[in-house]
């Protein structure tokens, strides 16, 4: 009998805990502690300076789009959408019609490569509209008043929450917290890929095991579908993913996806572009590497390498300027660049020998 009583007590306890976790502020605290667990010392979310003005600058957007690349096979890979699949259609087309279809495909590719916005982490809402003590014993549950007008976006929707707190006995009318807003928005304006309850994938253990399996794109897609870009969960998950990518030099897995731009922006913001540069130079993508350095200079306008005034189009010289002035892991980047230059020289030599042998 005693055992049965204990069991029932624990169920109630967990229920309360879950309830608090969903509606209470302890959610934010969990996020803060998990940042320390998951990431290195210098990796943090965007909570000091606002990155949005820099991110949405035209110059920066152009550079990020150029860096992302457009691998058509990668973008238009066969996706499994749980729909009935139809066999492909084969058509005979003229050259003009082919060009038309290709330009349409390019427009669609650009929309699929749209970068999720990079924003400052949102601050908790503390907005009390009214304190009405005459309502204090009126009801035991909270009432939520939500604006369900058609066409109002989730971010601008008014969601009010009239509470009677169990401990304090006053009826306050306050704005809903961010977590409550997300749940209400999903309830009344459901979106594909988004759940009311946060997926367990975003917990530390599950996230780590997913990243160990190198499912970076899946995790980022999932967090984009589920959370807003300025929510603490989104920022924490992105930090974990970028951290794992940087440690294992797997930047290439996000190439030609919508997440490559924000990743490069994040690394440049935190002055950690060296491992990215090394992997790009090793893949002989010197244009992309110089674009990354240019992005770094756009973000940190007062860096030393910007004052050297080297032409951006002279890729190797541009990167060398960065290595001498601002680079933190000079040896590795220098070595990579040196290897690249030697390789280019050898190829030129080989070509020269071949043309000589052919008597040209």
């Amino acid at each position, binding site marked *: 009998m005693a055992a049965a009583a204990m069991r029932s007590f624990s169920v109630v306890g967990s229920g309360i805990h879950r309830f608090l976790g969903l509606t209470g502020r302890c959610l934010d605290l969990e996020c803060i502690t998990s940042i320390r667990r998951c990431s290195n010392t210098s990796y943090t979310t965007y909570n000091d300076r606002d990155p949005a003005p820099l991110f949405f600058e035209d110059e920066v957007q152009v550079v990020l789009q150029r860096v992302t690349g457009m691998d058509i096979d990668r973008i238009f890979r066969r996706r*499994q*959408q749980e729909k009935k699949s139809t066999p492909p259609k084969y058509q005979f087309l003229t050259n003009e019609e082919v060009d038309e279809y290709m330009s349409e495909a390019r427009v669609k590719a650009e929309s699929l490569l749209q970068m999720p916005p990079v*924003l400052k982490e949102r601050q908790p809402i503390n907005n009390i509209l009214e304190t009405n003590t005459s309502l204090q014993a009126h009801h035991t549950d909270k009432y939520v008043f939500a604006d369900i007008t058609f066409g109002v976006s989730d971010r601008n929707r008014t969601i009010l929450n009239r509470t009677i707190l169990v401990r304090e006995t006053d009826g306050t009318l306050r704005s809903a917290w961010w977590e409550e807003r997300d749940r209400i928005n999903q309830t009344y304006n459901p979106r*594909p890929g988004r759940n009311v309850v946060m997926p367990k994938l975003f917990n530390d253990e599950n996230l780590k095991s997913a990243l160990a399996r190198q499912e970076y794109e899946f995790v980022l897609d999932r967090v984009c579908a589920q959370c807003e*870009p300025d929510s603490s969960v989104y920022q924490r998950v992105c930090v974990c993913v970028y951290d794992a990518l940087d440690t294992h030099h797997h930047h290439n897995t996000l190439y030609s996806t919508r997440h490559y731009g924000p990743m490069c922006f994040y690394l440049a913001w935190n002055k950690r572009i060296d491992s990215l540069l090394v992997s790009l130079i090793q893949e002989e993508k010197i244009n992309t590497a110089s674009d990354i350095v240019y992005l770094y200079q756009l973000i940190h306008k007062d860096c030393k390498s910007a004052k050297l005034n080297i032409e951006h189009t002279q890729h190797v010289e541009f990167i060398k300027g960065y290595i001498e002035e601002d680079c933190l892991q000079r040896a590795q980047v220098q070595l990579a660049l040196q290897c690249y230059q030697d390789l280019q020289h050898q190829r030129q030599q080989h070509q020269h020998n071949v043309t000589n042998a052919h008597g040209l």
Partner: protein
Amino acid sequence: MFSSCINFYSFKPLKMLRSIGQGVTRLLPVVCPTTHMAKAAVRVIEGRSVTKLLYEVRRIQWITTCKTMRCEVAEEEEEGEGEKKEDNIPPEKNRRQIIPVETSIKYMQSDAYKTTYGDEPVWVKYRRNFKGGLPPTKTRKTCIRDGILATGNPCPVCRDEFLVVEYRNLELIKQFISPFNGAVLPPLKTNICQKQHRRLLVAVNKARDYGLLTYDVPHRHYDYSEYYQPQQQDDTTEAGR
């Protein structure tokens, strides 16, 4: 404290009875009724015309008064019943033992599994029995009732006790997901019973929630004007209006 077998007569007070065999709702055991009362009651029941019956008498045999003996008898009786029940189950139909997921995961990698199923999913070689040309739109409700296989041709999952459908057993779950469109295959295709199909749906959803199974997430489009407006200093993200 010696055991004694006493014939107890339990008496149930009834107000009115139309006929002899009407339903008894509750028996009140009476210890050692006087013999004349018992006889009187019995006489009343045996009588043909019954208009008013005060008590319905039931004879209960072989109840001992001694506590210790009673306990022993109870144990013996239970053991006897248990043995009888388990004796009746043929071992190949016995599904009473719960096999842990870890064992099932190991089994999927074992030689026994390989020789049984090869490289194909477990449901491919199964043949469903039905009358006519088209199969019924639903598979059977469940193959296992009360821990025993209740059918002659159990479904592909129930027939093999080491196939445990759980979110961690990815090798097994992936066999029931279509390689063409990523959806869970319908039970008409895989021929698993309805109970196992429901367990499979739960397992697949749970595995996707934990991130053990990946899928193509629907693309989300952002309207940049909602997130940043270069003219204003503050974002339009301020809530609480």
